[in-house]
Structures are given as C-alpha cells and as structure tokens.
C-alpha cells in the first residue's frame, strides 16, 4: 500500500468547496476518501507515482483556495499523515515542493522517529504519562518493548507505541469492489412469493452476465446467486459448472436444477447474480494429441441441448462389487453438461485395441422356460424358450451357486453359462427360492 495525505489547516466548511476539492482529487487519483473532521483527504497511491500525484494534489488544493495545504506520501497512513501535518523532519525525506513531503519506501519508522510524540496526537492523559517518564520523541517510544509499554501505559499506550513504530492498522481504503460481471434486480412495489417465478428474473440477469462474459471472452465456472428476502435475511447459492462457459443455456439448466429443491422462508425482494470465478476461454491452449479439441465446443453444446430436452438422459455408470450381476452397475444422471474427458491411460495409442466380449443385461428380469438334463446329479439346462423361440445349447457350463443377503434381500441362485446354436453365449440362473429360470444376460 501507499498513501497520500492532503492536510489543510482549515477544511472548507461549505459543501460546494468541499465537493469541488474531492472532484479535483478524483481526477488525479482513482480512489479518494475524505476525513473533514481531521481536515484531511486520502488518496490511494498504489501503482501511481507519489511525486506526480503529490504535486497534482497540492496544486489542486491551492487552486481550491487552500493555500496552507500540505501533502505527505508514505507507505503507511501514519507516516503520510505526520508528513502532511508536520512536514519534513528527517534527512531521509526529500522535498520537491514547499508543502510536499515524500517518505521513501521502507523509511517510515525512521522518518517518524525524529518527531515529538505529540505528532501522533496522543490524548491528554497519555501525553502526561509519557512526559512523566521522559519519553519525548517517537523514536524513544518505538525503542521500548511491548511488555514495558503495556504495563506502564495500558492499551492506549500500545496503540501509540505501534504508531510510533509506523505500524498503522487503519484501513483507509476498503476492499476493491469486484469487477466481475454482476447483475441485480430489486423491487419495492411488490414481493415475489413463488420460487418458480424467480427463475424468470434470474434468466434475465443471466442474459446480462453472459453477454458481459462473452464481451470479455471469458467463461465462468462459479457464480453466486443471492436472494434478499422480505424478512431481511439473505440466501446465497453457489452455482458451479464443470468447465468454464459463457453459454446461457448451460447456466440456465444448472440454475434450474439448483432452484428446484429450494424453499425460501419469505418473499423475495431482490435477486443478485455475480460471477465469482472466471477464466479467459478464447485463448485456451489446445492439446497436440487431442484430435477432438477443435470440435469440443460443438460436443458440449450438443450435450447441453440434449440435456435441455431430455433432462436425465445422459448417464454415468456407478459400479459396485455386489454378488448379483444386475446390481453391479447403476446408471446415474449426469447433469454436468460436459463431455467427460476420457481417461485414456489404459488405452493404447499404437492402434492395437483389443475388442472384448462382455456381459450385456436385459432391462427387466426375463423369465424363460428351460429343458433340463442331469449331470453328476446336478440339473443342467440343455436349452431355453424365449419369446416362443427355442434355443438349444451346444455346451452348458455350471452350476455356480451364489447365496447371501438377509430377510427380503436373501438370494440363492445357480448360474449356468450356455452356448446357443448360433454361437451366442448366455447367462441363465435358477432362482432356488421360487424355482424359476431367468435369463441374466448374454455376451456381445
């Protein structure tokens, strides 16, 4: 941080002159704050030249009739303030103009050391105490250790001790306001009672935010949706997408999913939508080995379109190690709207992909009639009838018995693998609990 403090012995009392001074200062520095009670004005010097700004501020004050004004610049507010109020007091400073004191970076403490303690404006009691123990200059006070000051001078003494050491915790300028795209709508004539109606408002806000993102060639991956309610409470919802985008349709879909389960405790009076995290998407680096990079956006857009039309049609597998084959995989909706980047670690780039036949499963449990024979005192199917078509087995392997579970989940099954006449391998099982035969799947 770096500060410029403009101090004048007599702050203009009429509003017009005061406003005029502030406007002149704002033309010089982008961030300005005024403390008229203390006869001073602060300017934020971050990334600015202290000498240039200091001279301009001083000239502006003189033009405004403040002939006795002085300006101090320093890395800490207290050093800038003392420099403005008391002028130079040390060789470390360099004077460019009468009334302008520049404190070099890193020399704030040594700059203050030469000044009497009164320059830090201690209250009367503390000033008497300091006078009583013979501490006259800021340098003397700063040289003490914290415990000594605390014991003898109390908390006010510590504050003054810190100032003498150029340790000034004052927050002259607050956090800089976010410059990310933001849209807000507030209404006072009525209240929005239904959450569903809020989506229409959000949609409108999203238009503004996405247009701004597109204008900046940015894509957001985190937005914050804030509902201000009639009972003065506030509900904030973070909304994320898996990859940065400025596509309105994608954001509408994700916001809709977020709002669906939402129940607000009071009517809505204001809705705000702010981008919290964004990146430039126009200059994304392509991967030399990613042949689909050029069409990735088309793929994402197609998937977003598909999700808009068919909701949970895009699915992702979740696997378990359950003994029952029909419970080893579950298909869960994937609402991310992004085409998953493939995990190609197990795949070969050399072109030697090995096709492998895997078990396919019918959608629903499919009862079949079987013809049986006996082998080593065990039943063995020799064929099965499915939709009035009989398939004879050339070879049958089994049984493999599995059992487990408790109560209603209890299962006891004998599994058989059979090779049909057309060469298709199927998986059958006999449910021992009710003695029925089920087609569990086939290899394809």
């Amino acid at each position, binding site marked *: 941080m770096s500060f410029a403090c403009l101090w004048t012995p007599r702050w203009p009392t009429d509003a017009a002159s005061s406003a005029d001074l502030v406007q002149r200062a704002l033309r010089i520095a982008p961030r300005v704050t005024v403390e008229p009670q203390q006869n001073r004005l602060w300017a934020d010097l971050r990334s600015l030249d202290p000498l240039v700004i200091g001279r301009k501020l001083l000239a502006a004050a003189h033009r405004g009739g403040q002939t006795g004004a002085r300006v101090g610049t320093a890395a800490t507010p207290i050093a800038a303030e003392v420099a403005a109020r008391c002028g130079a007091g040390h060789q470390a400073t360099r004077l460019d103009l009468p009334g302008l004191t520049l404190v070099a970076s890193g020399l704030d403490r040594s700059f203050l050391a030469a000044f009497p303690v009164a320059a830090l404006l201690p209250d009367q009691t503390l000033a008497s105490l300091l006078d009583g123990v013979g501490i006259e200059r800021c340098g003397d006070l700063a040289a003490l250790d914290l415990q000594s000051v605390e014991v003898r001078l109390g908390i006010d003494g510590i504050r003054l001790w810190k100032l003498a050491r150029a340790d000034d915790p004052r927050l002259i300028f607050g956090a800089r306001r976010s410059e990310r795209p933001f849209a807000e709508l507030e209404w006072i004539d009525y209240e929005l009672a239904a959450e569903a109606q809020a989506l229409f408002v959000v949609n409108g806000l999203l238009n503004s935010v996405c247009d701004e993102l597109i204008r900046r060639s940015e894509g957001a991956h985190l937005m914050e949706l804030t509902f201000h309610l009639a009972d003065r409470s506030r509900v904030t919802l973070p909304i994320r997408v898996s990859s940065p985008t400025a596509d309105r349709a994608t954001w509408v879909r994700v916001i809709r999913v977020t709002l669906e389960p939402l129940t607000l405790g009071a009517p809505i009076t204001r809705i705000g939508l702010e981008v919290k995290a964004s990146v430039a998407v126009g200059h994304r680096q392509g991967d030399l080995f990613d042949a689909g990079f050029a069409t990735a956006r088309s*793929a994402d857009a197609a998937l977003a379109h598909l999700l808009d039309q068919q909701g949970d049609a895009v699915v992702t*597998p979740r696997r378990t190690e359950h003994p029952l084959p029909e419970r080893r995989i579950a298909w869960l909706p994937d609402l991310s709207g992004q*085409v998953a980047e493939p995990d190609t670690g197990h795949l070969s780039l050399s072109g030697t992909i090995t096709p*492998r036949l895997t078990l396919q499963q019918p959608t629903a449990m499919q009862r079949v009639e079987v013809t049986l024979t006996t082998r080593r005192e065990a039943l063995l199917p020799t064929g099965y009838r499915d939709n009035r078509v009989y398939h004879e087995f050339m070879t049958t392997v089994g049984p493999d018995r599995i059992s487990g579970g408790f109560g209603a989940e209890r299962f006891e099954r004998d599994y058989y693998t059979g090779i049909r006449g057309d060469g298709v391998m199927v998986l059958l099982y006999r449910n021992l609990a009710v003695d029925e035969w089920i087609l569990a799947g086939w290899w394809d």
Partner: protein
Amino acid sequence: MASSAATALASVPADRRTSHLRAILAARFPDALPLPEQTRPSLATGVAALDQILPNGGLPRGRVSVWSAGSGGATALLRASCDHLLARGERVAWVDGRRTLGPAWADGPTVIRPANDALALKAAEILVRSGGFPLVVLTGIDPQPGEMLRLSRMVHEGQGVLVALSERTQGATLKLRSRFLPSRFQWALDPFGEPARLDRMGLEIRATTPGWSRTVILTLEVVSHELRLSLDPALADRRGQLG
C-alpha cells in the same frame, strides 16, 4: 487378349475369381476406382481386421452404417472403436436405446439412455448433427424409412459416423453383419477335461455396400463374469481360479 484373360480366369478357383477379376480390372484401368472407394473420407475403427474389410479402410463419414442387431460381437467391436477414438482425444457417444449395457462397461463414451425410442432417435439426431462426435452408436432402435432419411441428413450435416444396431438396413450406406463361429471357440478345461470357461470366440464379419462385399474372420477375447460371493471387494472369493 480377351481369350487369354478368360483362360487365366478359368484356372483360378471359383471362390477367388471375383477378387482376381478385380485385380485384373485395377491393372488394366488404374484410374477407374470402384464406387465405394470413390466415396468420401472414412473413420478408422482401430480394429485392423475390421478396417481391412471396410471401404477406404473405415466407416464412411457423413453416412449411416447399420450393423444387424441379431449379429454377435457388434457391441465389442464398436466399443473397441470408441476406445480407439477416445485414445486420440475424439468425443464419442453411445445411445443405449435397448438399455442393455452390462456390469463390465468401463468409462469412456458419453452414454445416453433415453426414455423411449422417439427420444433415442432425437438424441442421436442432436449428437450427429453437432459435428462434435465423430462416432455415434445407436442401439435398440429400428428406424422407419422416414426416420432413417432424417438421420442420414443429420449425419451428412455433421460429417460424423452413425452406426445403428438395427434390423432395418434400408437407407444405410454400409451394412455389417456378423456371426459367431462355434468351431473356433477356445475353452479353458476343468479337471475332468470338460469345458469350464470360454476364453475366445471366433467371429465372422461381412461388410457390404453397393459394389463392395468383404468378409473377415477374427477372434475376440471373452470377459468372464465373476460370480463373487462377498460384498466386500477387498475379500478374496472362495472359489478357486481355473488353471
């Protein structure tokens, strides 16, 4: 000249005469390519044996290909093609209209499971039209002629490949049919010398398009279904492994 060619052809076995004739024609008229080879860019499946029998070494881009639904091995070969394209960074979609993908399905293609046939067709249309998916596989749907025409237009627009596992082949540019060859199955035997587990299956594939017909026989590995007893994947199953 003609008589000498006819004499040479007569000496060739009957089952090789067509290919021999093709070779003679290619030698005599080197600029005259057969129709399927003049078509358009193709998409290699990555399965060398399959690419050998496809015109231009791959599935035709911007066209609908149909793999007869009753054929065996289609899922395995198309899944291998998907893996090949994924390895290159391409995006691939699998519209599981018949909803039969089993427990051995590994992550890879974007899977779409629409609620009904109409939505499955609509999903396939959106995906192939976008141009973002070089390969879209559609299963479990038998498109009507009008629907097939519409799909063809969409594929043409996106310049990708749509492979439909369907019984209805009308309107398809490339038709594929496959069948298992039980005589080429390879078994692991149990201690009694009887078949215990099928390790590999022989498969014959025929690719046909106007002016083109090729057949290949290949062997596919079989992923056995593991009948586990324990719910805990960390626990070893008490069944022994076949030697």
